[in-house]
């Protein structure tokens, strides 16, 4: 069970004055739940992930992941692959896990499952963007995370490549049952992936609407069901994606 409460996070200086990015934001996720965070750009989605991932110590926030869970069991996938260019694919994946033979074996399995078996000894610079994301995905799963934080990880990929990565992610998640927080600005992507979608307001960001999805997986973002759900949400809450969400809050 993940529970997050951000009382306030501000940036000291944006155009000379204090900018409050997040205020009084509460979020929780059950074990193994797949939660998508959707909001307009600049609403503090990435900031929120950084706080949860322990990359931002300056926020007034409390983050609770199971008492028993070791700190090392949080995986993080960024907007860019962020692989170490001087390490091979295999070394990049093994970089983040403990030096145990089981970990190396798991790294090999994950890379194999992601159709990267051929390139384990290649350097990231020689791989395509899609392949680099797959390596980053393997790196996130190799630590067998309790919690997986994903910050628009499939942005700027062409549609088929992104679709393939999404289905790989869902397969891995179904097998390993990590709790996932997935940030995106693409509502169709969120509806195709999540158990629950949380909508953030524009800054200071709060959660203004939650929407649960019961459709069976795998789901195609372009399918009729997702399309219907998309239209319905937007007609019921106009301005939702712009983060205005005044009426959405009432509905919630």
């Amino acid at each position, binding site marked *: 069970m993940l529970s997050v409460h951000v009382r306030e996070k501000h940036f000291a200086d944006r155009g000379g004055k204090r900018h409050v990015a997040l205020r009084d934001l509460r979020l929780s996720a059950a074990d193994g739940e797949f939660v998508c965070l959707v909001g307009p750009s600049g609403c503090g989605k990435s900031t929120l992930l950084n706080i949860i991932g*322990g*990359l931002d110590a300056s926020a007034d926030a409390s983050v609770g992941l199971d008492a028993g869970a070791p*700190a090392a069991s949080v995986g993080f996938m960024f907007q*860019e692959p962020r692989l*170490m260019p001087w390490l091979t694919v295999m070394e990049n994946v093994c*970089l983040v896990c403990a030096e145990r033979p089981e970990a190396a074996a798991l790294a090999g399995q994950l890379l194999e499952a992601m159709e990267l078996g051929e390139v384990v000894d290649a*350097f990231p610079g020689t791989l395509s963007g899609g392949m680099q994301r797959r390596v980053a995905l393997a790196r996130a799963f190799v630590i067998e995370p309790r919690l997986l934080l994903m910050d628009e990880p499939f942005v700027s990929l062409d549609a088929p490549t992104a679709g393939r990565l999404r289905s790989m992610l869902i397969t891995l998640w179904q097998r390993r049952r990590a709790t996932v927080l997935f940030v995106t600005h693409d509502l169709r992507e969120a509806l195709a992936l999540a158990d629950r979608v949380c909508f953030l307001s524009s800054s200071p960001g709060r959660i203004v609407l939650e929407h649960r999805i019961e459709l069976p997986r795998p789901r195609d973002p372009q399918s009729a069901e997702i399309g219907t759900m998309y239209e319905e949400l937007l007609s019921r809450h106009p301005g939702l994606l712009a983060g205005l969400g005044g009426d959405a809050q009432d509905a919630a």
Partner: protein
Amino acid sequence: MSRPANASTATAGVLGSRGKGGASWRPGRDVLLRLASLVVFLLLWQLVAVVAQDPTVPMPAVVFERIGAEVASMALPHHLGVTLFRVAISFAAAMLIGAAIGIAMGRWPALDRFLDGWLVLGLNIPALVTIILCYIWFGLNDWAAILAVALNKIPTVVVTVREGARAIDPRLMEVARAYRLPPARKFLQVYLPQLYPYLFAAARAGLSLIWKIVLVVELLGRSEGIGFQLNVFFQFFDIAGILAYTLVFAAVVLLVEALVMRPMERRLNRWRQ
């Protein structure tokens, strides 16, 4: 400060066989060109000696004969060994201390501002002044000599490494933090590789500076080493001796560059295609 990329291309080309221009490059031709350059050099030297007809311009054959004699008497190996030892110790000390200070200054702006004045001072003190002061304060001994050389080199290492430390990619450091990497692994596999180009630029420039300063240090206050020998030959106007020692010393420098520095750099840079 020169960028490391420039520094490495500027010093390449002595013994290296880094292919440029793609299709026309063949290793056999490269070696041939280098040999031709050596032969032309020797011929020019011979020509100058023949034309000058002066005992202060000995012929190549005389100098090479002298090298043979100095090696046979073990004088040259002994002095060369002493000098190389001093070079190795002061180089290692300067790189370690300079890199540590450079990393710290790149990391903490307050420290950077605090030490910046000292750094400018260090960069601008003439090598001779450091050497004289070290000998006066610490006596005419090996440690004073090594300290003097290291002190001359440290500021330039600091400047180069500091620049690298400022250019560290925060996004990669975030990966290390997000995955809670242990400090040693974070430093060795995420941080330090980003500094390699800068460390190599510092090492290259450092070695070429240290070779030269060590000789001055030896000339001024030691009774062994290449610099000491050169001073003796100078007293006797023994030009063949000076050239013999100089040639061997230069050859050793080239060998270190070709057999140690360049293979190491190639290995660490193999991910850059």
